[in-house]
């Protein structure tokens, strides 16, 4: 059972990684800057999940805090870019 659980968690890790890569494809293709920021927003959400995966596989709780801080900062970043696009910054 423990073996199977590990396999499923690893599969989930790779599926999330694939999601990040697909987001990155949209990030590269654009075409407008708004598309790129939208892609970045989705990528950060996948990134949070991936950091927690790293914490889980490494068994290190400190990475959960890293994910928490990353969530805070990426939210601020996306808001700042949105404001900038609107011309309000």
């Amino acid at each position: 059972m423990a073996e199977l659980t590990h396999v499923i968690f690893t599969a989930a890790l790779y599926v999330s990684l694939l999601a990040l890569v697909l987001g990155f494809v949209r990030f590269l293709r654009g075409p407008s800057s708004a598309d790129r920021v939208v892609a970045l927003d989705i990528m950060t959400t996948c990134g949070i999940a991936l950091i927690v995966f790293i914490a889980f596989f490494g068994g290190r709780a400190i990475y959960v805090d890293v994910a928490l801080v990353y969530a805070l900062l990426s939210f601020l970043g996306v808001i700042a870019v949105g404001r900038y696009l609107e011309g309000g910054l």
Partner: protein
Amino acid sequence: MIAFIGSLICLAGSVFLLLGALGLLRMPDVYNRMQAGTKATTLGSLLTLLGIGIAQPAWLLKLLILVIFILLTNPISSNVLVRAAHFKGVKLTEKTVRDNLKDDQEKGGDGD
């Protein structure tokens, strides 16, 4: 056993993350991309983190805080981005049937 259930929830969550990213690729304009992206990835990350939290109960509280934070911030950031896109005049796809916001902006200037 409980770790096994957690792993299944986690896998379901990662599939939703993938579907959100796929929507990001397939949809024709910014607005539809954001729709697909925000919804599916919010549920996806929620399930992924909960699955790990079930397998690792010591972290559950912190992961729950992370989940609540994602649940609160994801719609806000999507709203800000879409508003900025509409403000900049990013075109809606040809399939679009109606744009009431643009009509109102042309009619009466911008209120806010």
